[in-house]
C-alpha cells in the first residue's frame, strides 16, 4: 500500500553540521530508493542509517567538489517496480546529480536498467547477485561479495566436522535463488565438499507458514540445512522448525539472521544459528571504531553489515567523485574500476564488469546472545558449537 505524502516524503538531509565555505553553491544531490516499508524494511532501515552516517562524515570533511552532499531518497516499499519508477523520477524530475543503489538484488537488478539508460554510475552497496554485473551493463559497480559465497562458511564448517547430507530452501526471488542454485553457489559447494544434497525447494516471497516445507525437510533429514532468506521468513522459519522439532546438526540463514533483532525476537531459539556476514563489528578495518561509535550514538543499536556496506559504499562513491574532480558518470566509473582500497567494510576492488572481487565474507554463529565469528579461521574469534543440540537443550 502507498505511504501517504508524509510517509513517502523526500528525506532531504539537512546537515546542519557543515559550516563550510561553498555554502553559497547548491549541494550535490545523490538519489536513491530504499525499502523503508514492506518485506525488506528492517534491512532497508539499516541501509538508510548507513547512508545518513556517511553523509554526516562526508560533509564534516567538506563535502565533495566544494559542495555539500545530500541524499534524496524515497521508499520503494520493497517492490522492484516501484524502485524503477522512483529512479526514473529521481533522474528526470528531481534531476539529481548522481545516484546510489537501493536495497536488495531484486530491486538493484530492476533499477540498473534505468540508471544505464540515463548513463548514471550506480555504486550498489547491497546488490550482491553476480548476474547483475554480467549483463554487459557499463555503470553498475558492486561493493559486497556476490551471492554464491553466502552459504559457503556454513557448508564448510559442517563438512569439516563429518556432515554427510545437505538441504537448502530459498525465497523465490533473484538473490536467494542465486545463492543456492547458481553455478558455484550452495548446491555446487556442498557437492564439491562431498555432501549429498537431499532436498532443494523454493518458497514464495511473503510465506509465513512453513509447516509443510519443514515436514518434507524433516523427512529428508539433512545434517546441514541452509535457508536463503530475508528477515521475516528467517524468523518464522526458525520458530516453526522448533515447533515441528526439525533439528539439523547445523542450520544457517543467508540474510536476516545477522540483525540484532533476530536474537531479540527469538531469544534462546536463535542460539546456534549460523549466518554469513559481509562485516561485523570488531573486525580490524580502518574507521571501524569511529563508525560503530557514531552509529550507536545516533541510533542506539549496533550497525549490521547492511549499514556498514551502505556507509562504506557511500564513502567510496564520494571519494571517487573527489578523485575524478567531477560527478560525470564516465569519469567516476574510470576511477572506480581502477580503485583498490580498504575501507571500514574491508577490501574493495572490482573487475571490468563492476563485480566485487576483493571483499571477504565471514560466517558467525549466535552463541550466548552474541554473534561469534567462526569462519574463516583467519578472522574467527571463536569456535563453532557443532553439532547443534536438540531444541529442548538450547
Amino acid at each position, binding site marked *: 500500500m502507498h505511504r*501517504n505524502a508524509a510517509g513517502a516524503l523526500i528525506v532531504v538531509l539537512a546537515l546542519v553540521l557543515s559550516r563550510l565555505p561553498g555554502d553559497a553553491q547548491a549541494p550535490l544531490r545523490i538519489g536513491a530508493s530504499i525499502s523503508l516499508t514492506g518485506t525488506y524494511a528492517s534491512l532497508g532501515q539499516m541501509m538508510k542509517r548507513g547512508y545518513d552516517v556517511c553523509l554526516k562524515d562526508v560533509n564534516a570533511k567538506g563535502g565533495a567538489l566544494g559542495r555539500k552532499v545530500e541524499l534524496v531518497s524515497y521508499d520503494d516499499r520493497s517492490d522492484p517496480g516501484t524502485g524503477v519508477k522512483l529512479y526514473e523520477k529521481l533522474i528526470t524530475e528531481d534531476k539529481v546529480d548522481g545516484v546510489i543503489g537501493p536495497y536488495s538484488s531484486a530491486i538493484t537488478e530492476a533499477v540498473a536498467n534505468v540508471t544505464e539508460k540515463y548513463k548514471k554510475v550506480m555504486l550498489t552497496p547491497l546488490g550482491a547477485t553476480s548476474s547483475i554485473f554480467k549483463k554487459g551493463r557499463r555503470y553498475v559497480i558492486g561493493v559486497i561479495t556476490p551471492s554464491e559465497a553466502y552459504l559457503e562458511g556454513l557448508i564448510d564448517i559442517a563438512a569439516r566436522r563429518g556432515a554427510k547430507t545437505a538441504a537448502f530452501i530459498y525465497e523465490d526471488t533473484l538473490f536467494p535463488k542465486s545463492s543456492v542454485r547458481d553455478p558455484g553457489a550452495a548446491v555446487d559447494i556442498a557437492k564439491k565438499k562431498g555432501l549429498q544434497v537431499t532436498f532443494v525447494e523454493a518458497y514464495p516471497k*511473503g510465506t509465513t507458514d512453513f509447516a*509443510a516445507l519443514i515436514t518434507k525437510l524433516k523427512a529428508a533429514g539433512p545434517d546441514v540445512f541452509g535457508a536463503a532468506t530475508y528477515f521475516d521468513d528467517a*524468523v518464522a522459519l526458525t*520458530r516453526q522448525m522448533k*515447533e515441528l522439532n526439525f533439528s539439523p546438526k547445523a542450520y544457517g540463514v543467508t540474510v536476516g539472521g545477522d540483525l540484532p*533483532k533476530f536474537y531479540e525476537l*527469538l531469544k534462546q531459539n536463535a542460539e546456534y544459528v549460523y549466518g554469513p556476514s559481509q562485516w561485523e563489528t570488531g573486525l580490524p578495518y580502518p574507521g571501524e571504531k569511529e563508525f560503530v561509535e557514531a552509529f550507536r550514538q545516533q541510533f542506539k543499536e549496533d550497525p549490521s553489515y547492511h549499514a556498514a556496506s551502505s556507509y562504506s559504499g557511500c564513502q567510496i562513491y564520494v571519494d571517487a567523485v573527489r578523485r575524478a574532480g567531477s560527478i560525470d558518470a564516465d569519469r567516476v566509473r574510470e576511477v572506480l574500476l581502477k580503485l583498490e582500497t580498504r575501507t571500514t567494510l574491508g577490501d574493495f576492488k572490482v573487475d571490468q564488469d563492476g563485480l566485487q572481487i576483493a571483499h571477504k565474507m565471514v560466517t558467525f554463529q549466535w552463541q550466548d546472545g552474541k554473534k561469534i565469528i567462526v569462519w574463516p579461521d583467519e578472522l574467527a574469534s571463536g569456535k563453532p558449537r557443532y553439532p547443534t543440540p536438540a531444541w529442548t537443550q538450547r
Partner: protein
Amino acid sequence: MTITPQMLGQVVISGILAGALYAMVALGLSLIFGVMRVINVAHGPLLMLGAFATYFLYHGLGLNPYLGLPLVMVVMFGVGALVQRTLVARVVDAPELQSLLLTFGIAIALVNLAQLAFTSDIRSVEYLTASWTVGGFAFSKSRVIAGVLAVAITAGAFLFLGRTRLGKAIRATSQSPDVALVCGIDVDRIRMITFGLACALAGAGGALIAVMVAIQPEMGQIWTFKSFLVIVLGGAGNYPGALLGGILLGLVEQLSSLLLTAQLSEAVSYVLLVLVLLVRPTGLLGGRAT
C-alpha cells in the same frame, strides 16, 4: 521423495489448524458482505490493528495474549461500529464499486497510519513457542490454541446468529433489508452491529496471529486476500460456507505444498478459486439466501 502417512498426518493437522483461523477471520468478511453487500477490503488491516493491540497489551501491561483477546475483540467492535457509522453507512445503498473504493481507501489509511504511529519495525509476541507431541505428531502450541479458539469463537458466532433475537435480525437483514425494515427491525443499527462484530472477529484473528508471525503494518493485506478466497469458495454471505471454505483453503495450501512444492501452493489455491467460480459461481454451499 516418498510421502509417508506420518508426513501426511502432520500436514493435515497443520492445514486444519490454519483453516480454522482462516474460517474465523473470513466469517467477518462474509457477515459484512451478507448484511451490507459491501466487500470490505480493509478487513486485513483491521486484523493488523488487533495484532498491534495484542502486542501493546502484552508488552505494555504484561497481559497474556489469550486473556487479552476478549479485550481486543471489544475494542475492535467499537472501532468497527465507529467506522461503519461514520463512513461505510454512507455507501451501503450505493453501487458496489463505491463501497469497494471506500474500504480500499480505509485500508490504505489504516496501513499508513500504523506505519506513522508504530513504524515499520517488526515486532513479535514471544509466547508459547514450543509444541506438544502426541503419537509422533507435533502440535504447535500457539497454532493449536489459535485453532481451538477460532473454532470456539466461530461456533459462538453461529449460536449468536442462529439463536438470539439480534442474530436473527442480522440474518433477516441479510436476506432482505426491505422486508426486515417493514418487520420493525432497525436496519441501520443492525448494520452497525454487524460491522462491529466483523471487526471483532478480525481483531480476534489478529490477536491469535500475533503469537505466530511477525507483527508489522503490512501484515494484514494477505488476510484480506485469504478471507476473500475463503468466502468465494464457501459462498459469499453463506456463513457455514465460510467455515467449510476456511478449512478447505488451509488443507489445500498445506497439502499442495507437501505433494507439489511450496512455490506452487499459492497457485493451486487460486486455480481452485477460478474453478469454483466457473463450475459453481455461488460457492460450494451456495450464495446468500435471497
